[in-house]
């Protein structure tokens, strides 16, 4: 026990968690905390808007595998964090958010910059806590890191009233915290693994759908081994991209609304579908009634509530994906597998790939987005970290940008938060300054959080932003083109600023390559640059992302051209 102020206890508790970087925006209700951070060893990365701070912490967490930390003041500071918190939480990212609150005596009086952030964030966090005494702060901080980074990862918010930061009290720093209602047990039930292995040993047409849970559990190795043992094609959700190298023989691409034809067809014709760490959202399953009608579904997930939520399963393995896949592999290695028939199944992968590859559009003077993605890949080393924004840019990246390792490709999958990719890239760069970091952006998305260029330059975090610029909110425009008779409403971004000049105005570098070769060179220079670079790539506003399963249709109804 030692007497100290709440703010001092807070900064010490952060240090004990090994949190060396805080992304945030200051304000009245966190002044005591900021005063303690002054001169401390903690790096404070100042965002220009709290949403950016939350996304930076999110990107930091995804790139490092450790919880990301963000801080905001009360009221608008706290509400501005909410989009970032919800984005991290739905993608099961360990994010810890701290908010200042008005002094205890003023809570509930509608005081200046008071907002009920506990109520507001309840639906968007895994857990939240409002502390009421300085002595509660170390426990709350420890709990936030513990709960966010165990079980199914998620966001935790801790709200700290200003007077609690100022007041001094005897505090102690617990070694560990426990909650009676929270015991994340990662060890799978052996009987569940027995049953899964038995089913898998009899499959003729297996397909694996791998999601973000495989990344979170660091289970790529086990996943690829299992796929090879079963000769099972692997398709991933957006969150799972990277768990198997894109150039692996068994990789079928993304599945779902913007999945590849081969992935969607294989899923539709499989007899056993092994789902690993995926939520089976509507974007992955398309029309649920028509989803993989002939398949028995085996679902591995650390979150029991995900099983049978959307897709009905025949069996499940609840637990950590690495342990579950490892256990199933051990069991299968003891069973003689009939591998003869799977050659034919693998040939189907090739067949479907030929059948459903979208045709090129000859004679178009614009750079085609898939070609830009391929060129970007050529210009980058295999370990480069890539984030995306949301919309067409994201789906082009998902479909055409190859990824070779987990934790090198990040995207806002569940919430689909435009403006996420750029601040997330900054956070990723803060976590991994040794690696190049590139944000694949659209002009619409970049416009939503472009003010983070200031942070980028100020903090010496030189990320590269590649804007696929079609002067449109492209994905919405695509839907209006395909499903609303070209009645374009509120999608024209023709009056956006000159992004090259914008970059320069912030002290960053801007460039506008004229063709794919120039683009490749520009990327090569940008990743070596000491300051952030914005590369503005003009593409055809009429270009659609294909393949696409139209909304409300089944996975087999694949459009490859308009």
């Amino acid at each position, binding site marked *: 026990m030692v007497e100290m102020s709440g703010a001092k206890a807070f900064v010490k508790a952060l240090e004990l968690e090994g949190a060396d970087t805080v992304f945030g925006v200051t304000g009245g209700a966190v002044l005591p905390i900021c005063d303690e951070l002054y001169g401390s060893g903690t790096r404070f990365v100042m965002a220009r808007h709290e949403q950016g701070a939350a996304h930076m912490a999110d990107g930091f967490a995804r790139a490092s595998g450790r919880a990301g930390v963000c801080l905001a003041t009360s009221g608008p500071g706290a509400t501005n964090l909410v989009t970032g918190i919800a984005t991290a939480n739905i993608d099961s990212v360990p994010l810890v958010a701290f908010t200042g609150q008005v002094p205890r005596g003023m809570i509930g009086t509608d005081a200046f910059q008071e907002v009920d952030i506990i109520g507001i964030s309840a639906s968007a966090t895994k857990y939240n806590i409002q502390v009421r005494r300085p002595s509660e702060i170390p426990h709350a901080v420890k709990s936030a890191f513990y709960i966010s980074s165990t079980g199914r990862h998620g966001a935790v918010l801790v709200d700290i009233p200003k007077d609690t930061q100022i007041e001094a009290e005897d505090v102690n720093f617990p070694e560990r915290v426990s*909650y*009676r*209602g929270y015991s994340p047990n990662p060890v799978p039930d052996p009987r569940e693994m027995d049953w899964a292995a038995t089913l898998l040993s009899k499959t003729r047409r297996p397909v694996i759908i791998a999601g973000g849970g495989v990344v979170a559990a660091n289970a790529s190795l086990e996943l690829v081994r299992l796929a090879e043992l079963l000769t099972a094609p692997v398709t991933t959700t957006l969150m799972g991209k990277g768990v198997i190298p894109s150039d692996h023989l068994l990789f079928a691409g993304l599945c779902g609304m913007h999945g590849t034809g081969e992935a969607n067809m294989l899923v539709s014709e499989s007899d056993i579908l092994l789902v690993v760490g995926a939520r089976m959202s509507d974007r992955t399953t398309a029309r649920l009634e028509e989803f993989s009608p002939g398949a028995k579904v085996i679902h591995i997930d650390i979150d*029991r*509530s995900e099983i049978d939520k959307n897709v009905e399963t025949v069996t499940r393995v609840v637990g950590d994906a690495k342990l579950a896949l490892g256990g199933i592999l051990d069991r299968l290695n003891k069973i003689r597998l009939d591998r003869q028939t799977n050659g034919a199944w693998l040939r189907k992968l090739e067949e479907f790939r030929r059948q459903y590859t979208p045709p090129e559009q000859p004679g178009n003077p614009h750079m085609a987005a898939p070609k830009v993605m391929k060129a970007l890949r050529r210009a980058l080393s295999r370990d480069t970290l890539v984030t995306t924004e949301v919309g067409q840019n994201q789906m082009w990246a998902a479909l055409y940008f190859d990824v070779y390792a987990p934790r090198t490709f990040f995207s806002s999958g569940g919430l689909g938060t435009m403006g996420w990719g750029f601040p997330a890239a900054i956070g990723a760069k803060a976590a991994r300054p040794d690696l190049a970091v590139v944000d694949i952006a659209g002009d619409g998305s970049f416009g939503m959080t472009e003010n983070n260029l200031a942070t980028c330059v100020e903090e010496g975090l030189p990320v590269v932003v590649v804007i696929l610029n079609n002067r449109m909110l492209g994905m919405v425009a695509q839907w209006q083109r395909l499903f609303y008779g070209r009645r374009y409403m509120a999608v024209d971004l023709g009056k956006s600023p000159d992004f090259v000049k914008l970059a320069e105005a912030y002290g960053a570098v801007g460039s506008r390559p004229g063709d794919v070769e120039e683009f490749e060179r520009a990327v090569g220079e940008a990743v070596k640059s000491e300051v952030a670079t914005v590369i503005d790539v003009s593409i055809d506003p009429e270009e659609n992302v294909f393949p696409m399963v139209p909304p409300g249709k089944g996975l087999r109804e694949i459009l490859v051209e308009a």
Partner: protein
Amino acid sequence: MRQLNTVAFLVENKPGVLFNVSNLFRRRGYNIESISVGPIERSDLSRMTVSVKADSRELNQIVEQLAKMVDVVSVKRLDPMRTTMREMLLIKVNTADPMAREETLGHVNAYHGLILHIDPDSIIAEITGEPSAIDEFIDLMRPVGIEELSRTGVTALEKGRLKL
């Protein structure tokens, strides 16, 4: 088929937990018929009993989503065959008409209820029983003239050795 089910769970007895539970039900669109809550023999925990209309898949989701909450310590779907269930009703009946008064007293008596208060014009009665018996009683009293009523919601315990 969406049937009426009872789910009982123990929660940390601290501020905000009731909000989080009801927020979960609201957000996921589960249809609560009734909810009752009170501290148990160990005062740091409260027991909640929720009566909810759901099909079996939805019910499974409700149980799993509740189990996932940090402040929910244990949760169970109660098997109606192995559970005693009770609900209490307070009902005020207009008895200005002597016939109504007589009818009310007869019905309350038949349902083993208690008369709690008598005014010249009204009677307040208490009925305790299975929720379906409460429904029956209310239907019976409708033609007599209900002024107002209040139900506590279902509370339930499993029989024998079964416990939460």
